[in-house]
Every structure is written in structure tokens, then in C-alpha cells.
């Protein structure tokens, strides 16, 4: 058996593709983990009543803000005084709008962004708050001039937004008139006093609550880990496929027959290939560990050793799956296509690229069959400090390996009977 392992390892080491999978893909996976995620988390978060969301730079898109079906309003704020803050808070608290605010210098800058937004982002409306909004005595005479609303969709809720904005401005104008002041602090005090008179609102989101207690940062990290898992899965399936190819070639060249003539059983032959999968998974896990040394540990959100262990377990599953599928496929061409299909579908269906929260029951059920889905769940549990993560991951790994090896041996037997 040792000889068999040694020969296969030698064959793999001579293959350039193996080194690409072993070195390049884990590097790419680590690289993707270092990229700052921007806004996907808003889709996952149970983001009711989040107030005004701050948009740090123009690269951040607001499209995902619509995850809960609210009317998305992107605000270009050139003002930033107390009253404009009050105005935005009121708008965000109305229950129908999701407000994201980005600071700009003037209207020309906002106009430029809005033009690009119309083609590259997705929102219900955009707003521009002028620098002199509610800041000079004259501006209180024409508060509406300080706000420009841009229609950015065919959504009928735009008129509701318009009414709401004008109502808030009306209240500001009222307080200015009643207090006889144009001082923001005085008006704000009067507005807040009036707010106290209104019945307080509290909301509870019930049924099918998908909020999982992760913070926005943790969700961003989890998204990154998902992308990294996608690259690593590719590495595993390709290497598993390379091992499968050694089996196919050994079968085709009658090497397997000669091995059997030496007294080795088929079981120990395949066991040696499974051992190769263990070795390779360990190697990839080690390479990933070394790569993560170049990352800021805190930004990863997960310990290096924890990640390495997860990578190792995932490697075991996918190398075995690819080895079995490739062997059953029977020829190099089909085994390649099978590996790619496994990679594409499993990554997509396990929700590594995009959230599957809103999918139908069937898709969610299929998703539960994908191994990566459980590793993502495990990551979540680890983030939350739940100790059940490891027993779950170990059970999942053992279950998948038993399943694949079981199915695989039946498949291979059927295939050899056919041949």
C-alpha cells in the first residue's frame, strides 16, 4: 500500500496542474478573503429600523438594501446640519423607506453620481440635500428648494416619498414659524418635544426570522469566507480528479490488473487512493494556513487554525467525491466535466456566491445537500462562539465520506460489471 501511495504521489507531483491547484488556488482564496466586502450584509441582516445607513464611498452599491422590499432612497448630502439629520432620521423611521446617505460637496457632484447610478446601481429614488438647507434665515422661507428628489425607478412609491418629505419639511417650517427662530437647535428642540407627544412605535419581525445574530462585519467576513471556500472547492475537486485520472489510466493500461496479480485487493487499492486524498487535503490546508499568515487575523474573523481545520475537512469531502465521480465517469474527459459540474453547482446551490434566503423550498432543500452549506453554517456558529460547530462539521464530514465511498464502490462495481 505504501508503494501504491508513493507512486501516485510521485505522479501527482510531476503534474503542473497539481501544483497550480495546491499553490495558486489557496493563494487566490486567501486574497479574496482580504478584500473588503461592501454591502451584501444588508441583504442578510434583519435590517428593520437600522436608521440612516452611511455609504462611505461611491463604490458601495445600494441595490442590496432592497433585501426587505423597502423603497431604497440614496441620499447625496451636502449639508449635514442638525435639521438635515433630523429630516433623514424621520424619513428612515417611516417604515417604508431604506435610506443610505453619502456625503458630497455640491449638486454637480450629486448629478454626476445620479447619472451613473441610473445605469449601474438600483434604487427607488435619490435625494440631494443642498449645503444651505435650513441653515440661513432665507432658506426657511423655501425649505423645498433645499431638497432635490431624483426619480430613479418606475416604482409608484415615489409619490409616497414625495409626500413624506414635504410633510417633514412642513413640520420644520411650522416649528420655525411658531418659535420665530431660524436657529437649528431651537427648532430641533421644538420638533423633538412634539415627537414626544406622538405614540411611540415599536416593531417586531416574526415568522421565518432569518436574522442570526451576526453583526454586519461578521456577515461581511462570512461572505468572504464563502468566496474563499469556492476557490478551495475548485482546488479540491481538481486534485480529486487528478487522483481519479491515475485510477482511469491504471485501469486502461492494465496496471490495475498487474497490481491485483501481486495479491493486492481492490479495496486496498482504493484505500490507497483515499489516503492520497487525505494527504492532499492536509497539504492544501497547510498551504492555506501559510497564506493566511499574511492576513490580519482580526479581519478574518475566524482563527487560522480553525479555518485550516475546516479547509482540511472540506478537502476530504470534495477530494473523495471527485475521486469517486471521476472513477465512475470512466474517462478523463467525462471526469473533468463531472468535476466542473460538481464545483459549479455545489458552490452556487450552497449559497457561497449569493444569498439563498429568499429561494423556494425546493432550492433550499437542494442547498441542504451541498457540503459547503454546512461549512458556512459551521462558520456562523464559530462566529457566534457556539461549541456545537465542531461536532456538527465532523459528523457532516464522516457522513459525506461514507456516502460517497458507499455510492462510489457500488458505482465502480457496476461499471466494472458493464465493462
Amino acid at each position, binding site marked *: 500500500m505504501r508503494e501504491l501511495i508513493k507512486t501516485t504521489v510521485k505522479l501527482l507531483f510531476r503534474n503542473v496542474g497539481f501544483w497550480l491547484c495546491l499553490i495558486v488556488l489557496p493563494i487566490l482564496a486567501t486574497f479574496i478573503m482580504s478584500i473588503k466586502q461592501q454591502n451584501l450584509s444588508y441583504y442578510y441582516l434583519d435590517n428593520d429600523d437600522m436608521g440612516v445607513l452611511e455609504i462611505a464611498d461611491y463604490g458601495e452599491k445600494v441595490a442590496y438594501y432592497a433585501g426587505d422590499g423597502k423603497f431604497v432612497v440614496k441620499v447625496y448630502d451636502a449639508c449635514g446640519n442638525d435639521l438635515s439629520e433630523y429630516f433623514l432620521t424621520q424619513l428612515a423611521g417611516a417604515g417604508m423607506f431604506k435610506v443610505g446617505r453619502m456625503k458630497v460637496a455640491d449638486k454637480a457632484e450629486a*448629478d454626476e453620481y445620479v447619472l451613473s447610478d441610473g445605469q449601474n446601481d438600483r434604487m427607488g429614488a435619490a435625494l440631494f440635500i443642498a449645503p444651505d438647507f435650513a441653515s440661513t434665515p432665507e432658506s426657511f422661507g423655501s425649505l423645498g428648494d433645499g431638497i432635490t428628489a431624483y426619480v430613479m425607478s418606475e416604482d409608484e412609491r415615489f409619490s409616497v416619498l414625495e409626500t413624506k418629505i414635504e*410633510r417633514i*419639511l412642513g413640520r420644520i417650517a*411650522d416649528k420655525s414659524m411658531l418659535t420665530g427662530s431660524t436657529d437649528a437647535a431651537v427648532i430641533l428642540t421644538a420638533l423633538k418635544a412634539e415627537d414626544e407627544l406622538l405614540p411611540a412605535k415599536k416593531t417586531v419581525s416574526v*415568522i421565518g426570522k432569518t436574522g442570526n445574530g451576526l453583526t454586519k462585519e461578521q456577515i461581511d467576513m462570512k461572505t468572504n469566507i464563502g468566496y474563499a471556500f469556492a476557490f478551495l472547492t475548485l482546488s479540491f475537486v481538481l486534485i480529486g480528479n487528478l487522483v481519479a485520472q491515475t485510477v482511469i489510466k491504471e485501469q486502461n493500461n492494465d496496471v490495475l490488473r498487474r497490481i491485483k496479480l501481486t495479491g493486492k485487493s481492490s479495496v486496498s487499492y482504493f484505500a490507497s487512493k483515499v489516503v492520497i486524498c487525505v494527504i492532499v487535503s492536509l497539504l492544501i490546508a497547510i498551504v492555506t494556513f501559510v497564506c493566511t499568515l499574511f492576513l490580519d487575523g482580526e479581519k478574518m474573523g475566524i482563527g487560522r487554525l480553525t479555518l485550516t481545520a475546516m479547509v482540511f475537512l472540506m478537502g476530504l469531502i470534495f477530494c473523495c467525491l471527485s475521486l469517486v465521480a471521476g472513477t465512475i465517469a470512466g474517462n478523463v474527459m467525462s471526469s473533468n466535466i463531472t468535476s466542473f459540474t460538481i464545483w459549479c453547482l455545489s458552490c452556487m446551490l450552497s449559497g457561497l456566491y449569493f444569498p439563498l434566503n429568499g429561494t423556494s423550498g425546493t*432550492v433550499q432543500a437542494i442547498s441542504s445537500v451541498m457540503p459547503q452549506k454546512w461549512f458556512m453554517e459551521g462558520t456562523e456558529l464559530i462566529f457566534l462562539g457556539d461549541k456545537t460547530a465542531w461536532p456538527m462539521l465532523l459528523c457532516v464530514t464522516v457522513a459525506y465520506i461514507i456516502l460517497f465511498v458507499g455510492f462510489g464502490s457500488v458505482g465502480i462495481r457496476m461499471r466494472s460489471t458493464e465493462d
Partner: protein
Amino acid sequence: MIFYLIKNYLKMMLRSASNILMYILAPTVVAAVLTSAFTTLMDTYRAPSSFEVGYRLDEGSVFENGMDTLKDILKDKGVTMTEFSEGDPEELMNRMELSAFVEFGENEYLLYKDRDARIEGQTLEYIIGEVCDSMLPRFSETPAIKVETPFFVPAVNSTDYYGIIEIAYFAWCSIICGAVVFTAEKKYRIGRRFAMSGVSELKLYISRLVPIIIAVSIGLALSAAVGILFFDVHWGNAFLSALVVLMMIFAATSFELVIYNATSSMVATVVISFAVVWFMGFFGGSFETYMFSSAPQILKDLSPIYYGNRALVELSCMGRSDYVSKSLIISGAIGVVGSAVNVGLLKLRKGRS
């Protein structure tokens, strides 16, 4: 000779049922999953026509006197309010199929919103907020704001988006159609016989290119028909859309044949092609919508599939797109350059053999 070759290749490609099935089934399945994943996010807003809400009114609540008025206002908006003096709100929502539940307290209200009826919950929250607001006295005139309507691409729903986009993605996987034929050709050393015959490299290349384009087009046209008939996918201008997809198949086939002619290995070709196309699709909007993806614009611009995707989607939702010409130029350029490289590689190979 060339027509004979084209006919022969085409016959072999079309004979493989799994080949055609892949081009019909794969886009349909992938589109169905992605459509499902992005439905909530990409759906266009539809105001709820009517829905039911439960409520409980505490004694001494500020809402006590105005309750009938509130109910009338909500009734006008299609909201039916039913009072439940007892029972757990969440359980009542489940049992009575209520979209929301409101507990009106002394000087507060607690709104239970169902995550499966979010629009209804938001509408109710907004209306109650407005009713509360309207209780405040008003003195000055409502200031009118300025409204501008800049150019924007109309929203496209997930069914249309993925129903279209996945056709484009699989157009880029065209080499699979020729994989079996070329592998068999290599196995039986037909290539050497071609070298012995007087067929020029250009003709040999065309005889491989054309049948792949025809076979893939047939498969994808059938897949698009399935989308239109069963999933109600709306394509834009049929002629331009077909032209964009056709040019993408040309570019893909030409590019992937370059890899095949350079490596002489169908395995390597499939691996490299799939990897390249996957990355192109990843950044070009084949999985995560290009409007949603926060990947740097430069990566999108570098992906040829992005131009085709945008052209097809904008044709569907706007009826026109600046990206049509860009996509045609880019695909055409890849196709032509790829063809030249292919002919060069075939010549080089013949010289060697």
C-alpha cells in the same frame, strides 16, 4: 469538401442527444435557481390590494377615541382590521393568516410584522405613522420639493434577467459541443489524414467552427423557447438579441478552439475554458447581477460576457442598448483574432507533422 466536413461534423454533434440536452437543460436549471434566489430582491413593487390585520386595544390607549377613524382610513387602503382581545399575536397571525398585528398601548403601539408579508407590514407601519402625524396641528404651507428625472435603466425582474443571462453564459461554453467529436477524431488519428488531404487550414478551421456555432445555436434557441413558453421570460428585440448571442457563440468557439489547437488536449481545453468563462461570468453578471455586484468596474469591463449580458438585458427592459454595438464589436474582434490564431496554429502544426 468543406461542406461535406461541415455536414458530417454537424451530424455527429446533433446526433449526441446529451449534447443538445445540455444546452437546453443547463441554462434552464441554472436560471431557475438564480431566479429563485434573487426574486425578492429584484421583484418590482406591487401595492398590496387588500390584506387583513389583527389588533388589540388596551384600555386608556390614546388610540381609543380615534380607532374607528383609523379603521376607516385603513379600510380605504384595503386593510381590514379585526380585533382580538386575547391570544398570542404571533400565534394569531399564524392561525388566522393575518399579515400583521398591532397592540395599541397607552401611548405606544407595538407592530408585529410577518417577514413573509413584508410589503403589507411596511404599508401598515407607514399608514399608522402618517395617521399619528396627522393628529399634529399644521400651520404653514407644505413646501414643495424639486423633482428631477434623470436617465435610468428600468428595473428588470429576476426571471427575465437570469432567463436571458444564462443563455449567454452557456453560449460561452460552446466547446463542449465539439468535445466528443474532436476527442474521437484525435483518438482515431483523423487529424493526420486531414494533413495528407489537400484541405487548407482555413477550410479545416471553418469546418469545425461552423457546425459548433450551428449546433449550439439550435440548443440555445430551444432553451430560450423553453424560457419564453414556460417561464414567461421577456426578450427584447429578437433580431438584435439573436445577433448578440450568435456573435458570442462565434467568439467563444473561436477562443476555445485556440486553446484546443494550442494545447492539443480536449481535457486542458475544457478545464481552461470553463475556468476563464466562469471568472468572466462571475464578474460579468452571470451569477450575481451586474447591478448588484460591487466588484470593481474594471473587472467587469475586462469581461467580454459583461457587454453581451448588459446588451441583452437592456434590450429586454428598454428596447435599446448602447452595449449592443460594444458587445458585437468585442465578440467580433475575439472571433476574428481567434480565427486568425487558429489558422496560424493549424499551419504550424501541419508544418511540424
